[in-house]
């Protein structure tokens, strides 16, 4: 078990290294190849050549790409000093560099956005799991009935709806026409829990609807497969009550495959729900990334990509560990 864990951790670190290397390569090498100078992005177009050269030297843009990547990695682990002669700026670990657009440290900027994305993703996850799994199980148990057909039609519609459309539609209806919800931006939980809740309720529902639809379809398919297994028939033949057959025998193995999907989905969302955040003006990681991309703010793009990849890799790891516990057939070795 310990050996397995260590091997998985090493794998996770390698994956993160590859992701950063590829991202780093693309965002620092392509602009260089097509002739745009990162120092110019950083300092602005009208600066004089001496200032540009100074910035280049200080930020290390003149170094070969591999050296720059090495320094970037060192910054994450141990922090780094940007120096040009006597002009030294210290960036404490985990250092992700300085934003080209605002000259602020990237790490605190992203940490500021993280709670927004966390609130959005976790709240929506609770909703979609409950809604999706309940619908799927109900549909499977009432297979072929009106309930099943209605639920599956809704789910099919749900997976076909783009979130940037449902989001706009929902805010048009509930905020502007019915005026059930206030217009306004995200309010931190620590500031006012009530307003935090109302500011997030629409994004939660919109995001959860999309995922709930997918989960309902998956749950139904898995449950139907499980209900057809021999051991379920055996359980019934033993004379167990239907509730025990479903609750203790069928549900467990019917829902196990969902754990993998859930881990991946949540991991992907924690790295920034770009579309939802952009539709609802939530200033989370995804929103930050989008703004950064529009301004060619490479260090922020790199930072968000790294965090996003970290969540995905971490979620994968957790899923695999949890899997061994909920499904005894899987031996971790």
């Amino acid at each position, binding site marked *: 078990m310990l050996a397995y864990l260590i091997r998985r951790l090493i794998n996770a670190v390698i*994956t993160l290294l590859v992701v950063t290397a590829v991202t780093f390569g693309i965002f620092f090498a*392509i*602009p260089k190849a097509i002739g745009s100078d990162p120092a110019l992005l950083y300092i602005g177009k009208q600066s004089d050549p001496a200032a540009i050269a100074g910035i280049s030297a200080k930020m290390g843009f003149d170094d070969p790409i591999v050296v720059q990547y090495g320094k970037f990695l060192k910054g994450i682990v141990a922090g780094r000093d940007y120096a040009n002669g006597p002009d030294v700026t210290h960036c404490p670990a985990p250092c992700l560099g300085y934003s080209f657009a605002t000259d602020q440290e990237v790490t605190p900027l992203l940490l500021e956005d993280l709670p927004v994305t966390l609130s959005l993703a976790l709240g929506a996850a609770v909703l979609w799991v409950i809604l999706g799994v309940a619908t799927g199980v109900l549909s499977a148990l009432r297979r072929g009935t009106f309930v099943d057909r209605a639920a599956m039609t809704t789910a099919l519609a749900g997976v076909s*709806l*783009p979130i940037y*459309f449902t989001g*706009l539609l929902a805010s048009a209806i509930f905020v502007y026409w019915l005026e059930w919800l206030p217009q306004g931006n995200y309010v931190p939980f620590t500031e006012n829990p009530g307003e935090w809740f109302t500011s997030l309720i629409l994004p939660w529902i919109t995001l959860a609807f999309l995922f709930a639809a997918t989960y309902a379809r998956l749950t139904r398919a898995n449950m139907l497969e499980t209900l057809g297994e021999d051991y379920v028939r055996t359980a019934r033949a033993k004379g167990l009550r239907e509730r025990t057959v479903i609750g203790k025998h069928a549900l467990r193995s019917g829902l196990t495959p969902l754990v993998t999907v859930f881990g991946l989905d949540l991991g*992907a969302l924690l*790295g920034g729900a770009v579309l939802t955040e952009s539709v609802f003006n939530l200033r989370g990681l995804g929103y930050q990334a989008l703004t950064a991309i529009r301004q060619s703010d490479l260090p922020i*793009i790199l930072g968000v990509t790294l965090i996003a990849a970290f969540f995905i890799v971490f979620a994968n790891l957790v899923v695999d560990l949890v899997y061994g516990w909920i499904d005894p057939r899987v031996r971790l070795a």
Partner: protein
Amino acid sequence: MAGAIVVIFLILVAILAPVLTRLFGHPIDEYHTDKIDPTLGTPIGRLGGISWDFLFGVEPQSGRDIFSRILYGAQTSLSVAFLSAFVSTILGSVFGLMAGFLGGWVDATISRVMDFLLAFPQLLFAIALLSVLPDELFGLGDRWSRVLVLVGVIGFFGWPYIGRIVRGQTLSLREREFVEASRSLGARSGRILFRELLPNLAAPILVYTTLIIPTNILTEAALSFLGVGIPPPNPSWGGMLSDAVTFYQIDPMYMIIPGGVIFLTVLAFNLFGDGLRDALDPKAR
């Protein structure tokens, strides 16, 4: 069945967009400022200016014909979706077959690459990549250059989905007797791969290709919505929705029409794909 009919209808609409525009619409770039309320910037008349002359109404401010822009949007949307599905299918089938059939280090490498790509913040990455890639390629003009770039990016990130399935199927098929028989007759690997295994994989490949088309439509629309897809003034569904953000409180039809069209298109392709899967693999019903 209904899905298949709508899919065929949409493909025809996309191909015939220039003809249909000439018959029932107005050129996509023609401004009709006389249809616009000069103070609000919104279309004159109810429901976003829908009339016999402008079947889907006009755009706020510019007064361009939404009907013809939707038709041309279908062209871009469907070509991106089909071509990138094609790219994903080719890459996924080739690598999936190789991984499943050859095993060993080839399998280990390909599987690792697939895991890696699936573990990638894809949308984020696609946005970033699209924003650094040039707008003009091979003198195709900005519309088709962008289509090509989108096909490359969406197609590339999509292949592991196909690859995983093909690999899994290949793993189970290669142990079957007919493969063994063929090998004992002295067939080379190439022949076993393409003449024995591939025909047996055609059904699942077809089904999953059909099922990634709607995902691709949504991705293309999302990227255009975020401003890194098809550049304006070229018409695209996602681009129209993104313009609608400013107007949806006063002119909701401008949001509902492209959104509804995306929804119906994706729904039709999903229905079609599900139907195809049920027909080819009755067990999954």
